[in-house]
């Protein structure tokens, strides 16, 4: 099973829906709420997101080596099956 990490905002509706998607599909994941992290950790997360070609929009989801920005169940399923 691929490792799944969700970078989220605690205020974000689509971050909640993403977490729910992986819970309902019984896929273990780690969730990190960006807005609850230290400034140093936030800088690390933002750097990682921008290196992946993404902006500061959430959710940002890593599935194995791939990453997805935004709530996209079709893409999640595709990456989990790859």
């Amino acid at each position: 099973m691929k490792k799944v990490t969700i970078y989220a905002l605690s205020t974000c509706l689509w971050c909640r829906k993403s977490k729910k998607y992986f819970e309902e599909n019984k896929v273990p994941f780690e969730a990190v709420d960006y807005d609850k992290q230290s400034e140093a950790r936030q800088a690390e997360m933002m750097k990682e997101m921008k290196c992946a070609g993404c902006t500061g929009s959430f959710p940002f989801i890593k599935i194995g080596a791939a990453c997805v920005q935004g709530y996209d169940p079709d893409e999640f399923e595709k990456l989990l099956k790859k």
Partner: protein
Amino acid sequence: MSLEERKKALRYLFGPVVDKLGYKFTPVEEDADFLLEQEALLEAETGIPYCPCQARTKDRAENMRIVCPCIPFHRAHYDAMKRCWCGLYVRKDVTDPDKLKQVPEERINAH
């Protein structure tokens, strides 16, 4: 002002603005209520109703681009998605927002 009152006030303030931009509140009432609540909480914390799904940085000018309604700053992106990033607003012709995808700006600009 209570949280519920502030949510009503934000709805009252934002409605006419987004209407002129060709948008409306999402008809998914549960989502609209949740998002307005998050904005009212962010406003209580920071003084500004920021978008609940985009991160603030140390750059004030950059942060101003995610003050709700942030449609004018992301016009091409949101018009292509027919919704804004957090989903509080959808284009006026949208009837089923659940069918709309959240597409990153980079993927839209790539087309």
